[in-house]
């Protein structure tokens, strides 16, 4: 069965790149660009894996993740966080907030693919 991924990211070109990479690998890709409404979008689509950017308009990825982990229905959802900010500190913060994996931009396409496959249990 086709695995579904939800990408929450606001940079159109990055959305396009990730969508292309994952679609080509057989994923079903949904995208959302706004931080404030992200949680509702996750609840609506209930993906197998979530790719979450940290810098989002309206709400930060960390806050969304914290809500996610507090929600019993979404607690187990595997999350890959992406960030373009700094080093070191961001990774710790992501792990602390409950991200399963963390990648900093720019990433290698193969790396994203491999991480998502692992998270989806493929």
């Amino acid at each position, binding site marked *: 069965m086709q695995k579904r991924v939800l990408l929450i990211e606001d940079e*159109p070109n990055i959305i396009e*790149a990730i969508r292309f990479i994952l679609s080509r690998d057989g994923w079903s890709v949904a995208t959302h660009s706004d931080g404030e409404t992200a949680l509702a979008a996750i609840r609506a689509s209930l993906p197998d894996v979530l790719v979450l950017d940290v*810098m989002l*308009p*309206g709400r930060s990825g960390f806050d969304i993740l914290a809500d996610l982990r507090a929600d019993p229905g979404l607690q187990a959802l595997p999350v890959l966080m992406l960030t*373009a*900010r*700094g080093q070191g500190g961001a990774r710790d913060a992501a792990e602390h907030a409950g991200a399963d994996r963390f990648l900093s*931009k*720019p990433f290698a396409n193969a790396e994203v693919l491999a991480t998502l496959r692992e998270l989806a249990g493929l």
Partner: protein
Amino acid sequence: MVPFNLLVAACLGYVIMLFLVAFRVERQARRGRVRWLRSPVVYTLSLSIYCTAWTFYGAVGYAARSGLEFATIYLGPTLVLIGWWWVLRKLVRIGRTQRVTSIADLISSRFGKSNLLGVIVTLICVASATPYIALQLQSVTLSFNVFAGPLPEGWAARDSNSTALWVAAGLALFTILFGTRNLDANERHNGVVTAIALEAVVKLVALLAVGIFTVWVAADGPADILARIEASEVAGWRMQPGRWAGLTFLAGAAVLTLPRMFQVMVVENSDERHLATASWAFPLYLFAMSLFVVPIAVMGLEVLPEGSNPDLFVLTLPLAFDQGGLAMLAFLGGFSSATSMVIVSAIALATMVSNHVVMPLWLRLRSGGARATGDVRGLVLMSRRLSIAGVLALGYGYFALSGGSSALAAIGLISFVGVAQILPAMLGGLFWRGATRLGAAAGLGVGFAIWLYALFLPSFGGGGLFPADLMAGGPLGIGWLRPQALFGIGGIDPLLHALFWSLSLNAAMFCAVSLLTFPGPMERLQGVAFVNVFDHSGPTRGWSRGGAEAEDLLAMAQGILGADAAQGFFQAQAAAQGKAGFLPDTTPEFIAALERRLAGSVGAATAHAMIAQFAAGAAVSVQDLMAVASEAQQIMEYSSQLEAKSEELARTARALSEANGKLRALSVQKDAFLSQISHELRTPMTSIRAFSEILMEGGLDGADQARYARIIHDETIRLTRLLDDLLDLSVLESGRVQLNQRAANLHDLIDRALQAAGQTRPERRFTVHRDPAGEHVAIFTDADRLVQVFINLISNARKYCDAERPELTIRARRRGARVEVDFIDNGSGIPAAAQSLVFEKFARLTDTTRAGGAGLGLAICREIMANLGGTIAYVPGQGGAAFRVALPVRRAREAA
């Protein structure tokens, strides 16, 4: 014998020297080198204008006629100065705290800034000083004639009137040149004061020289002189205690109330401590002046032919011994005495006339409610100059009319009695809080009237204004109204008679009317400020909060003080309130300070009237009155001081915490800066890397391949632009930017900017309103940089304006040497919290997608404007986002 021409030459030379001294000192003072000018010695010497030609020549004549009685004229001032602690100290302190400009201003200010009193006092002063000035002119003329008389050749034929006219004109010129330099009468006339101090030295040296000559050359030393005095009729003089006491009192009163004495003693005083020095030094000066009076008189009576004018012994005695040089020195001494008195009197009277008569008239005639703006300085200075000329013309006119009659000789004391009428109101105002405006007016009026009737008018002699039968029988035969025997009490010396009746009725009316009437609010305030001047030298509060706009007040003050002084004053006041810029809050304290500052130029009454035009209806609040009336006033004053202190502390704390908050915000931003750059660089790189990997793997169709290549291309451009912006910003911030300045038309620059910004969101309909008339301003600046700022603002409006039909209004207008361009859109504007941050780096308010920039645009704009010598600011409350760009029409050179 001295040739007359030589005398005229010496005289001219002396006057030219005075001009040079005054001129040099004015120049030094303007360069700030005035330390020695502000010494107590100069102050003491300037007080010596008390010794006019009347005392220089006349004291000897007086001694020849009435023996030691002349000493009373020196004794009165000596007592007043020795007792400086009680009256003079208070007078000087009040003069300084209230910025009093003249004695008329003092009385007017004390009694509720009443202009009526100002006018009355001015009238009294002018009436008593005019004959006195005439007397000085006469003394100069007479002394000229002593030299000219016996000689057939030279200018001897010249009649005495033209001599007086020349002297009067010369003095008017000097006084106008050096007396009306500063508008602020409260500032010292350094040049004049120094010239007067010099003249004081000259007259002392001259009189001492004649005295020493008399004792050691004409006579055979002190012992011989004492023997001669014993033998002369002067020794036969017997003291009349009543006249002695009366004259001493009169001279003491005069030293306090003579306009010229008030001018040098209070208005020109630069340091209260000088009084302490003057309190012993000035009596010493007077003592030295009087030391040789009796010897000169005795020798004159003995040596000179019967019937010689004793008033001129100082000149004729050296001449009789053929000592031309000494006589010349004596002449210069007398000349000094006369000129210094006339100069200072003219300044003092002109200030009064201009502040209490001309300015109020002008305010009333011109106003009709219209507010006083525009240049009042020119008007005030012109009215002072005309007043000086007017005062001297009056003096000359009086001299010419009275024909230099012998009646003039007595006018010195008559003048004294005239100005002494101010004494009750002055002392009452200084020491009695219950004294009222009406009381002062009644007292002054009665005293002035009696003086005119009983002393001044009769002084013209039997053939003068009063016919002999009026003098002998009273008006309409009413005996008890005889001018020199009021209430039927005759047989007294006319001077003492007038002095007694005028002053006692004056004081009685003053007290009685004061007790019967109630002081107005402003009178109460000023009364406390005067009577308790040592308890709280803090300013009186006469204004309550609100009403006046700081900007209006600034415009008015500029008209009076001049633009620089007014702006400096406002800026200092704003700084004291912890505010930047030119406009302080119009607190009662500020308005009171402004009023005092203006009072220093135009007098208290006029300053009050001018301020009242702006702070209408806000004159005195109930609290202010309570503060005065209540017994607990001291406590309230103290607590209000504490309140003011804690308010100030709170203000400082507020400013500190504001600064602290801003620092913290800035430091957070600095920390975020690297992280921001990282984000801005990594984001496009992510797309570039992802798509280049996709392209490397191959297997794409041509359309996709081209599209992905374009994305890589666009993102590279975005990266480049970001790096350009960062570099641009760092160059601008470091101030090492190369400006390419040229002349340009603002209209063309806005055209260019609109065209260049048209590519931002071209799909939206976007209306621009412009004002071509205002835009046509020629400016000299870096046009490309300015266009860069305009493009940024226009693109921002195109990007962020969230109105249904976005519109942008561009307004340009010239403000003096600057031009302001406003960009106002019709969107929802920038939230207040964000307004202070928009010009910071990376302070993009919405996030990336729409902006397409790194959030450096406005930060760059701010740096560009700083480099162009201008500013860019967010203007709240314009019904949308509004930015104001302001820059000099021509950039100042030193900033280049």
